[in-house]
C-alpha cells in the first residue's frame, strides 16, 4: 500500500487530523510529521497568554501516525466491517520538552506487535532540532463502533 493510499483511508478530518504526511512506512515502522499551526484553537486556552501544545495533542499525533496509519497499512486490503473502527486502548508516555506554536514534529513509531487486532508501538516524537519531545508506548485495537 502506498503512503497516499494510507492517508486517503485515515478516518480523521480537520480540526482533528494530526497527520500532515508520512515520510515512509513498512510493516515494521512508520515515520510521519505534523506542524502545529500558530492559529490553532488550542493555543487560545493552553495556557492563557502562554501558548504551549497540550500533551494530549502530542499523544494524538503519535497515535494517528503510529497506530492508525500503521494499522491501516498492516490491514492492507483486508476490509474493515462498516461497524468497526479504531480505538485507543493504552498510552504510557513521558513528556520531555515543550512544543510551541508553529513547531513541526516528527513521529517515529516501531511495531512491538500486531496480534488479534491489537497494535502496540514504541513511539518517539522529535522536534525540528532532532530532540526528543516525548516517547513511550501506545496501543490501539480494532473495535465495534460504540454507537452501533
Amino acid at each position, binding site marked *: 500500500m502506498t503512503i497516499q493510499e494510507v492517508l486517503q483511508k485515515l478516518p480523521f478530518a480537520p480540526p482533528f487530523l494530526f497527520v500532515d504526511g508520512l515520510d515512509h512506512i513498512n510493516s515494521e515502522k512508520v515515520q510521519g510529521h505534523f506542524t502545529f499551526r500558530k492559529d490553532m484553537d488550542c493555543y487560545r486556552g493552553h495556557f492563557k497568554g502562554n501558548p504551549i501544545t497540550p500533551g494530549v495533542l502530542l499523544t494524538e499525533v503519535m497515535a494517528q501516525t503510529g497506530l492508525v496509519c500503521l494499522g491501516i497499512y498492516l490491514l492492507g486490503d483486508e476490509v474493515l466491517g462498516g461497524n468497526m473502527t479504531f480505538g485507543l486502548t493504552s498510552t504510557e508516555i513521558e513528556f520531555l520538552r515543550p512544543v510551541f506554536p508553529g513547531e513541526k514534529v516528527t513521529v517515529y513509531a516501531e511495531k512491538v*506487535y500486531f*496480534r*488479534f*487486532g*491489537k497494535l502496540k508501538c514504541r513511539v518517539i516524537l522529535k522536534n525540528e532540532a532532532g530532540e526528543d519531545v516525548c516517547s513511550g508506548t501506545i*496501543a490501539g*485495537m480494532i473495535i465495534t463502533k460504540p454507537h452501533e
Partner: protein
Amino acid sequence: MDKETLIAQLKEIVKPYAKNQEALLNINENTDFVNDLKINSANLVDVILDVEEQFNIVIDNESMERMLDVKSAMEIIEAKLAAK
C-alpha cells in the same frame, strides 16, 4: 505439569492486568478473566502473548477467542504443550 503449578503460573501472568485484586488472590479453575478479574479486552491480548512466551507455544485465533477463563486457558496450554 500439575494443575496448581499451572494456576500459579497463570496467576503471575494475569497479575499486572487484573483490576480485581481479591479475585486474583482467590484465583482458581473457575475464575473468568473478564468477569472476575476485570481484565479488559485489550489487556486480554497481552495475557495471551505472555502465555505464549512463558510456555513457548503459539495461540491461534480460535484458541484466543476461547481463552476467557482459567479453565479454558489451562486446557489450551496443556493441549499445545502436548502437541509440541
